[in-house]
């Protein structure tokens, strides 16, 4: 199976039909889904109907875009009208949104076929995709390993050919970590680039929707499709659109790249570390000037992130009351309103979600707000200033995407902080509202995917695409066919 844009080119040239392309994906799903569990909801019949309709619109010339006919998987925290949206949680059991997210509307308008909703850590809280009420997704490269999280179902679906391309969401690395673990490209856009209307909120100051694909080009085209201001999301911004074609052909000649050596030194895996150094060499060979530098705050970014994310999550998740939608505990005689709510929440949320709600409520509580939440906001401002200084010297920052290859299932079961610390490379981009991309960088000695991460200044996704395409061209990316 080819990348989404290449497949859509074949559809446009009438060498294959949308239905044939879809059936190829459905065949992969039949072969692999039982082992991998990428999806929470599959909509085979709906997809077949969409494929026919889209083919007719391609035939009559009303659909001409680069992703017309692409089979897309959507993370289960993004609303697709009339398909369940569980967020990987019992708390949202039975919730079928009566509306489309803005990104879903954009997929439909562009002629994408929505095949289903992908598995994820509950409410996007996790780095392994094991915190799903519906069970873990397994890594297509080695089913004894995790996919990374929280958008693990989307990453695995793309890697295994169970979708041509997917949407994920990224609050602290939830697109880039699973992309790294599954050998696909994951792009977290600038905060504000893509509307979050219809994205079920985790931490509103950090959440962003983005693409996961088998090539940099796929992610670039999907980013163009998703971007733009939306009156229904006051944080979305109208910014100059990314010219994907120009960005992909730009190369890196004349660009300056800062390799964040303080973050690189935190990487415990020599092969993951070497992948970053090799990427630096490739960029240098392609004409970029690469310098080592210290970004700073490496000791602080994980605590800053978890204070802010947990606090915002505790507030956002207050809406789950067992009344308006989702899970409601059975009624008991004498039960009052507060008990109904507290019991529904206690029974509906999983362990990691409860932990973050409790910590978030604590850091927002009277007496502790200044010491934790306000302090973290101030530290976030200082981190952002560090990035401003870095981007006054460099066009791009290079660092690891993940501390290691995909870990074995269950490794972090009793090591909460160990799992949190693994987010050190990805949370910085969310805290500074920057665009960042995880790019495959070959495989390790066991054949497991390695990856590197590039970051750019706000709304400079074009530079990520330019450098990502250069790295892709120079090897390391071997998943055009899916595995």
């Amino acid at each position, binding site marked *: 199976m080819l990348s989404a844009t290449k497949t859509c080119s074949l559809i446009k040239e009438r060498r294959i039909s949308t239905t044939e392309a879809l059936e190829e994906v459905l065949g992969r799903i039949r072969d692999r889904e039982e082992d991998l569990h990428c999806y929470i909801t599959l909509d085979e019949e709906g997809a077949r109907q969409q494929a026919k309709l889209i083919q007719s619109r391609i035939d009559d010339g009303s659909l001409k875009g680069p992703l017309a006919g692409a089979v897309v998987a959507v993370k289960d925290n993004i609303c697709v009208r009339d398909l369940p949206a569980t967020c990987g949680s019992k708390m949202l059991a*039975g919730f*079928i949104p*009566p509306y489309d997210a803005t990104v879903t509307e954009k997929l439909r308008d562009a002629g994408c076929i929505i095949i289903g909703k992908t598995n994820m850590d509950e409410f996007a809280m996790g780095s392994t995709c094991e915190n799903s009420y519906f069970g873990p997704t397994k890594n297509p490269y080695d089913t004894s390993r995790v996919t990374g999280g929280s958008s693990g179902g989307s990453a695995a679906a793309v890697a295994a050919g169970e979708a041509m391309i997917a949407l994920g969401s990224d609050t602290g690395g939830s697109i880039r970590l699973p992309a790294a673990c599954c050998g696909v490209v994951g792009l977290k856009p600038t*905060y*504000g680039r893509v509307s979050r209307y219809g994205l079920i909120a985790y931490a*509103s*100051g950090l959440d962003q929707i983005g693409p996961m694909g088998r090539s940099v080009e796929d992610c670039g085209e999907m980013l163009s499709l998703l971007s733009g*201001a939306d*009156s229904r999301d*006051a*944080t*979305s*911004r*109208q910014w100059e659109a990314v010219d994907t074609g120009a960005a992909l052909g730009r190369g890196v000649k004349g660009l300056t790249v800062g390799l964040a050596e303080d973050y690189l030194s935190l990487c415990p895996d020599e092969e993951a570390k070497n992948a970053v150094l090799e990427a630096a060499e490739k960029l240098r060979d392609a004409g970029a000037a690469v310098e080592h530098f210290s970004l700073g705050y490496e000791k*602080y970014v*994980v*605590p800053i992130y*978890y*204070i802010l994310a*947990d606090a915002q999550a*505790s507030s956002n998740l*207050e809406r789950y*009351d067992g*009344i*308006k*939608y989702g899970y*409601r505990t059975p009624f008991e005689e004498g*039960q*009052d*309103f507060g*008990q*109904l*709510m*507290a*019991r529904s*929440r*206690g029974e509906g949320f999983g362990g990691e979600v*409860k*932990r973050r709600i*409790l*910590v978030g*409520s*604590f*850091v927002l*509580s009277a007496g*502790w707000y200044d*010491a*934790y939440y306000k*302090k*973290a*906001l*101030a*530290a*976030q*401002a*200082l981190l*952002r200033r560090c990035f401003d200084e870095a981007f006054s010297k460099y066009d791009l920052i290079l660092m690891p995407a993940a501390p290691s290859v995909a870990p074995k299932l269950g490794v972090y079961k009793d090591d*909460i*902080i160990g799992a*949190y610390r693994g987010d050190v490379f990805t949370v910085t981009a969310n805290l500074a509202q920057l665009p960042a991309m995880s790019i495959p960088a070959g495989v390790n000695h066991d054949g497991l995917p390695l990856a590197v991460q590039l970051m750019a200044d706000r709304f400079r996704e074009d530079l990520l695409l330019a450098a990502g395409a250069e790295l892709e061209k120079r090897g390391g990316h071997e998943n055009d066919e899916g595995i």
Partner: protein
Amino acid sequence: MRQKIDEETVAYVSKLSQLELTAEEKRAAAADMEECLTMMDILSGLDTRDGEELLLYDNDQNVLREDERVGSDMADSLLRCAPLAEDGLIPVPKTV
């Protein structure tokens, strides 16, 4: 200086969070919260006097919309989302 998180604190925070926990969950939550907050306490050693609260976005570039009435005839579809609905209403226990 923060006291070690105990079950009393967990009970207080779970009440704030409207979260009913089992006895076993309360015991585990005390240890888990302590571990998480200890990890976060490292921030107390960071001088943040120069830090300003970061605005989530630039106010002058907000996406604003006209304050106009738009389609709101969604009662039926919203009621279908509720786990329990009867006669166009969502039944709840007595609130007062």
